[in-house]
């Protein structure tokens, strides 16, 4: 399929945190995100989760 569904976009956003996405995958993801506010928000949520874990990994968070 040329167009990702939200389910595929979510999976690609997650996998993109663990591996290098292909050029085609990145292009399809970018296209989907340009048309989907919900998945753009999901992308921001994944970034926040990663930053939170980085902070927890470094100093345990704010204690």
């Amino acid at each position, binding site marked *: 399929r040329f167009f990702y*569904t*939200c*389910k*595929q976009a*979510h*999976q690609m956003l*997650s*996998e993109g*945190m*663990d*591996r290098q996405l292909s050029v085609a995958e990145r292009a399809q993801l970018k296209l989907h995100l340009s048309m989907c*506010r*919900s*998945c753009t*928000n*999901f992308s*921001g*949520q*994944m*970034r*926040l*989760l*990663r*930053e*939170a*874990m*980085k*902070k*927890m*990994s*470094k*100093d*345990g*968070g*704010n*204690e």
Partner: protein
Amino acid sequence: MTALPELHRQLDEMRPALLRFAMLQLRNQTHAEDVVQEALLAILEKPDNFSGKSSLRTYVIGILKFKIIDLLRLSGREIQLADSEDSDQSEAELIDSLFRADGHTHQDASAWGSPHGTLEQKDFFRTLEICLEKLPAQTSRVFMMREWLELSTEEICKELDITTSNLWVLLYRARLRLRECLDLNWFGNLAK
């Protein structure tokens, strides 16, 4: 260098948090207490190794992470947590329940705002810990290895003897569950 009695006091204060982090990764009270004890002993045996370039807390957590990685490498396969096929199926069903048949979400994801403000709040991290505790054991272990111990995907696959595609699925499930949990319990977005 911190004076030894003061170092003792500070490490004692950190101990409950260190135990919580070890438990999140190991899901076994005995193993968690062992690695925390080993980490604290290592620091007390060579207090001069702490140069003060980072905070004591960052230094201690760094030592604890090494101790946990050592334990996983020594006995990783033995203390592996097997998820049953049943739980694997229920995990897949949980993800399916978030999407309609056409692959689009039942409910739009909301914006969580700037990470900066959120990550300055102590209670946010307590909520995140609670969400991590709720993850299925194997999913939690894999996620913590990736995001807390900061191991590469290759290292995790080698340690747990799983394929990369299996790992990506487990990490995806962990992130979706954590997203749902934080959305509900921190950002206050009730499912419609």
